[in-house]
């Protein structure tokens, strides 16, 4: 089979359907959203074509700045915590026998595919007064009476790290599974303790992977929408919540679209950085 450039309609035909679907149902909606962000809002819930930047100017308000910096800070905290726990965990995971590895992977995939709604419900139950973990503490005599731990910042953080953890492990998994075991063995033969070998050989060797994963998890956490509403207080609402609120409940599509465009730019810049960090290691 010679691989050459396709010629004529017949050879191009297979790509027509996917190309059409992706252009009509992704490129056009996406472009439309960008267009709506400069449209003028008409009182009564609609908008008309225009070229105004008032929606973007609203970013300069203290309220928006607060939401934005909270969202970014929260996502950064979640990313650092998730990678900090997931990296040593994945490092151990890839060394397990194949069967045990597969059982862990199925378990992690199941958690990963849980809806944010279900994670939110599960954690608010776990942290509630009536059905929560504090009942266990009372039974063990560690606490006088059960209490509610949610909504709170801690509850939100726990829920987000819980949601991000399987994602982090699965992003780290290929890099760690392909790690050359000889490097570490060499370090061990030369007398390093396992812990020392981990910190002096494995971690520096995968520095770029760690950076790239942290950025990917950051973008992932930035998208959280339901957990802030279910586990946090209104002051913990993120940009995603604000966008939906403007689009659906305030019927202000132009402003929602402008915020979404902003979120796209931030995310794309970060994903670009992550790819760059990941690539350097591959060529190195």
């Amino acid at each position, binding site marked *: 089979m010679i691989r050459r450039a396709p010629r004529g309609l017949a050879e191009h035909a297979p790509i027509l359907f996917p190309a059409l679907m992706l252009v009509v149902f992704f490129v056009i909606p996406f472009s439309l959203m960008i267009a709506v962000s400069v449209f003028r809002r008409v009182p009564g819930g609609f908008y008309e074509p225009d070229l105004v930047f008032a929606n973007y100017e609203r970013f300069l308000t203290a309220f928006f700045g607060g939401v934005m910096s909270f969202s970014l800070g929260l996502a950064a905290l979640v990313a650092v915590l998730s990678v900090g726990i997931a990296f040593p965990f994945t490092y151990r995971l890839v060394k397990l026998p194949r069967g045990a590895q597969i059982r862990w992977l199925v378990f992690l995939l199941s958690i990963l595919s849980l809806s944010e709604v279900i994670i939110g419900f599960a954690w608010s139950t776990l942290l509630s007064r009536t059905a929560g973990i504090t009942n266990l503490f009372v039974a063990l005599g560690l606490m006088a009476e059960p209490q509610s731990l949610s909504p709170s910042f801690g509850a939100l953080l726990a829920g987000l790290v819980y949601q991000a953890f399987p994602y982090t492990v699965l992003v780290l998994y290929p890099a760690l599974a392909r790690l050359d075991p000889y490097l570490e063995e060499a370090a061990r033969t030369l007398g390093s303790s396992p812990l020392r070998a981990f910190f002096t050989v494995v971690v520096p060797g995968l520095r770029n992977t760690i950076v790239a994963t942290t950025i990917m998890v950051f973008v992932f956490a930035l998208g959280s929408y*339901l957990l802030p509403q279910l586990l946090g207080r209104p002051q913990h609402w993120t940009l995603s919540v604000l966008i939906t609120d403007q689009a659906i409940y305030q019927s202000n599509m132009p402003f929602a679209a402008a915020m979404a465009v902003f979120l796209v730019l931030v995310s794309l810049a970060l994903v670009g950085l992550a790819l760059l960090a990941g690539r350097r290691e591959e060529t190195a």
Partner: protein
Amino acid sequence: MLMRTLNSLAAGLIALVLAAPILVVAGVSVNEKKSLTFPPQGFSLAWYAEVFTDPGWRGALITSLVVATLSAALAVLIAFPLAWFLWRWRAPWARAFEVLGMTPFILPPVITALGFLSFWAAVGEYGSPWTVVVSHAVFFVTLPLVTLSLGFGAVDRSYVEAAATMGADDRTVLRTVVMPLVRPYVISGFAFAFVLSLNEYIVAYMVVGFTLETLPIKIFNALRYGYTPTMAAVTVLFVSLTAVVFGLIAWFGDLPRLLGAWAKND
């Protein structure tokens, strides 16, 4: 020895924390009274029965299953020809479509959701039941695209050359040589898209949330208007279904390889 004990302890702790919310919800789901208490008081499977007998919950369950099946099928229909084309021909420009297929999954979902909302509103289809199927298919096309790229990448080109030398045309090669080799990847791509569509909230909510209730939307609405153990029962059913689907993928396919590890004999 100490190291090993510490490692097992840490792994056990992580497993416990990951399982804890589900265990508590499972406990709540068998409560006898209509309240969320843990440890459960009494034992009853009534809330599981309610998922299937209550018209609201049953409707949401059926809606979710239908939407997930159709959108996963459509996602595979979009991803398969694209992945095949990229593998079969030397067409660097076609990579642009691959990147396009990856984008919705990488960006925060609220962005794709808002894009769909403006699009369906503009073409006057906002709220139509089928829009959520198309939206989910495009949103999750990344998953079959990734598994199929891996699948085609694993096809040994010498088989294909042998078949071509014997006079098989493209179509015959695809049907008799390539298809059997990539079938597990088609199935896992479908399964990934199916499970994620089943659990997806924000796109479904923004596109048809007021006219069509999928299970995640139903659960969220129920959360706002008061807790019932039925939610816990639905959650347990969902988690079990997901675990079964991924268990089957692991049983029939090479899960570590699907997730990017190299196969043993590489």
